[in-house]
């Protein structure tokens, strides 16, 4: 169905609109910054930006994976559960040191990715239900692994991931930057990246071109799970506690929103890595602005909804027709 995009196009737009379409998110970010510059005390400080960057990291990393999945015309609702599972695994193995624990946590997360990928690529289950079932089961497994307990993690080496900095830049932010770079290279510079968007663009054509469609799909769900696991690890380090019950709750919605606001269409066939970063930042800034102005929850939700609609409205036309 995605193959028909060409047949119907929205009417051509003026240059200003084309600009808005392409740079809608960035414009929204700029406007929000401007607003905060004038109306929010203590906003334009380094410390504040450090806080914003630290907070955006988990959503951003999850959104990177989500962008890959969406690029194949899929979706992954289980990312929050994967974060919970990796968080749950950390305290079990932290005695062996932070690195082995982190590796095992990522591996555990990847198992969920493998299950997703198998159901979707080999059996042909629709991604939204396949990952929904693992979203439900995954968090349950995480809680069982954690013995339904919340555990404090006090290994200093591990906590450094949440708190340490290099030249004022937190480790977690650096790690996120590296991951952004890796994903960008993966998407734009590798065979795998091209195969990914081809599958999203036309799965049938990709199959007939002899691409290893199933392998690529499974790998992508595993990658997404790996990224979510890393987000879970970072979150655990930041909280200095493994909280499988709440970590990553509803993060799938934030991640999908970030990806879509960033200009990646849900119909697949494209992955916008930088746009995804911008989308995540925009969500973070919206949340920060609302909290700092002490907007009550009810109105804060309404405002978020309106801003998201506006940001996407600006760039509509890009991803409209399936």
């Amino acid at each position, binding site marked *: *169905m995605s193959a*028909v*995009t060409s*047949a*119907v196009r*929205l009417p051509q737009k003026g240059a200003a609109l084309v600009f808005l379409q392409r740079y809608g998110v960035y414009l929204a970010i700029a406007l929000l910054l401007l607003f905060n510059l004038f109306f929010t005390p203590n906003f334009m400080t380094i410390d504040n930006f450090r806080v914003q960057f630290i907070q955006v990291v988990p959503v951003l990393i999850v959104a990177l994976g989500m962008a890959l999945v969406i690029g194949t015309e899929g979706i992954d*609702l289980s990312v929050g559960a994967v974060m919970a599972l990796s968080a749950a695994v950390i305290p079990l193995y932290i005695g062996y040191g932070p690195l082995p624990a982190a590796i095992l946590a990522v591996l555990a997360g990847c198992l969920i990715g493998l*299950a997703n990928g198998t*159901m979707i690529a080999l*059996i*042909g*289950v*629709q991604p*939204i*239900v*396949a990952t*929904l*079932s*693992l*979203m*439900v*089961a*995954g*968090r*349950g*497994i995480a*809680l*069982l692994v954690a013995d*339904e307990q919340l555990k404090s993690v006090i290994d200093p080496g591990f906590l450094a991931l949440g708190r340490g900095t290099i030249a004022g830049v937190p480790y977690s932010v650096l790690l996120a930057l590296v991951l952004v770079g890796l994903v960008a290279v993966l998407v734009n510079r590798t065979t795998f990246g091209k195969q990914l968007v081809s599958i999203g663009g036309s799965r049938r054509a990709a199959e007939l071109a002899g691409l290893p469609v199933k392998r690529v799909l499974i790998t992508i769900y595993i990658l997404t799970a790996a990224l979510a696991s890393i987000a879970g690890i970072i979150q655990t380090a930041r909280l200095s506690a493994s909280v499988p019950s709440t970590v990553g709750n509803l993060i799938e*919605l934030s991640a*999908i*929103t970030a990806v*879509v*606001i960033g200009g990646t*269409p*849900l119909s697949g066939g494209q992955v916008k890595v930088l746009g995804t970063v911008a989308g995540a930042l925009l969500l973070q800034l919206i949340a920060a602005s609302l909290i700092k102005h002490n907007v*009550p*929850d*009810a*109105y*804060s*939700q*309404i*405002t*978020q*909804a*309106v801003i*998201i*609609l506006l940001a*996407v*409205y600006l760039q*509509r*036309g890009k*991803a*409209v*027709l*399936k």
Partner: protein
Amino acid sequence: MSLALEPSVGPATTKQVTRERIAGNVQRYGAAIVLGLLLVVGSFAFPTFPTVSNFTNIATQSSFLLIVAVGMTFVILTGGIDLSVGSVYALGGILAAYGSTWGIAGAVLLPLLVCGTVGILQGLLIAYGGMAPFIVTLAGLLGIRGLVFALTNEGANTPLIKDASVTALGQGGLLGLRWPVVIAVVVVVIGSVLLARGRGSQTVLAVGGSESAAVLMGLPVARVKFSVYVVSGLCAGLAGALNAAYSSSGVPTVGVGLELSAIAAVVIGGTLLTGGRGNLIGTTAGVLLLTVIQNLINQVGSLTSSVQAVVSGIFLAVVVIIQTVLSRTQRL
């Protein structure tokens, strides 16, 4: 000689057609088949399962989700999605409670009016504004829940329903079935007739099957896309109102995560998420499957919430896998 001029239709065409038809039915009723199996297994495993009171419970519990899922089926058939139904459901409940001061008419019409308007707004943005359904209705999910909290003083107030005729709408019934069940059945029947043979039903399928083809064929694509979101808003509002009548109060926190249950039910029921194919019998079976799974977990009666989550997740996976494999026979 004239025989040779008949088009060459390949060997065994009629057999193939029969096969396709059987496979089509298996897919159409895949969820119902799995449901049947589950009912049989459940009946053998738990003596307290196959009782009239239990089945009545299952019916009542399913009715609200079913009404929501009917609207969702229409949306998904066009290749769209409606994430706002959970919030609209809560809104419908609150408004039914507020409206109940004007009796049953107020309790039903106020939610339908407002939730229909929500559907209209979303439909406008999607069908005429060219925005992606996912984002519009995600904003609806957030914004409407915000509205619900704003209407109830951050959720602190729960408007109650005192009018007896309104509570009777939730609690009373016909032939041993509660009104919500009766209404859900009516909604499914009307929906099925509309979907199978109603004006615009073919356009719904065509839009989901190939939107650009539908546009080029001159079908009223925008109007149909718009309509399904209105239908979904109305269904979610109606379900919310009935639920409020059932529980005599408009609780601001109900319906969280309802959209996922509804989507799951629709997809398990054999509707393609990309649109173009599906039916309400499947959706009904999908809803019942979800409820029966929960019911069976409760029959065990000693699982902790984590184990319950694992069991229901795996159950869901197994069900969709079976459903997918059954329907795969039809792939060309």
